[in-house]
């Protein structure tokens, strides 16, 4: 399956909707403050969340993203938001790869690609699910280096964390 472009705003709205929808799925009584609680759903719902999230995301021209996340355990329970997070990561990978491909050849395209790559910082998935200590500072550092013209962080990130193109 191939996912194509819409806007980041639509994505953020979708994420908010998914989050709102998830509030009705809480499966357990509160054991701590509401902010620490999340609910789970099954594999099919996780895949649907992944695909729905991707459908609301703008992708580079010609980019192709896997139709399912890398984990495929039909019997598992997935935290609500799991598919959304994987979709945002796949989308971010696509823009990182695009920036590396077009930088030095087309300044407008490179600027747009970097802008899209950096916009992961604005997503609900990043804010909610990226670990404050080990993940968020790394992502912010990579983006800051890239915005200063240093591609090494994006190169390392794509090599370690993105499917080969």
């Amino acid at each position: 399956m191939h996912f194509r472009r819409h806007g980041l705003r639509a994505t953020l709205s979708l994420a908010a909707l998914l989050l709102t929808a998830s509030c009705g799925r809480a499966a357990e009584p509160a054991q701590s403050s509401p902010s620490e609680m999340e609910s789970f759903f099954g594999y099919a719902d996780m895949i649907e969340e992944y695909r729905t999230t991707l459908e609301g995301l703008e992708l580079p021209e010609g980019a192709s993203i896997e139709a399912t996340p890398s984990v495929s355990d039909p019997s598992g329970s997935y935290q609500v938001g799991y598919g959304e997070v994987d979709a945002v990561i796949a989308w971010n990978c696509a823009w990182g790869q695009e920036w590396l491909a077009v930088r030095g050849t087309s300044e407008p395209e490179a600027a747009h690609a970097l802008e899209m790559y950096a916009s992961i910082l604005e997503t609900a998935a990043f804010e909610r699910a990226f670990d404050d200590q080990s993940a968020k500072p790394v992502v912010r550092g990579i983006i800051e280096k890239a915005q200063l013209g240093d591609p090494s962080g994006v190169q390392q990130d794509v090599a370690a964390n993105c499917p080969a193109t």
Partner: protein
Amino acid sequence: MRTRIFRAGAVLLLSTSLAVSGSLAAQAASTPVSGTVNCSGTRAYYQTVRYMQQPSLTQAFLSQAAGGVHSGYQMRIGINVVANGAFHEAWFQSANRWGTIQQNVGYVSNTRFKMNAMMVSPSSGTCSNSWSGTLHY
């Protein structure tokens, strides 16, 4: 804590505090982790994304195990690498044990991963589905 499991899953208590055991990126990070699993024994996958700080070794110490009186308190706690789905896990025979989730697999610093957990044996009757511990990564 005794809880009743629902078909769709369970509640995760996400750890929000994390202490880094050092100031160098190459040193391992250490964070409290906790969550709930299914008493049916199926695996629960958590959404939090972490980046390996010490990619040669990922370990966990299980402080509190999920389980039941009849089924026991054995657990599997694992990680899955986001890029390719590679899966690693440690088997804990009970609480208060260390487990090595992966060692010298060849990952590089800042490899993304998520966590998962399950009870080794399905529980019949009432079970405690909460677990907690510390992750070193």
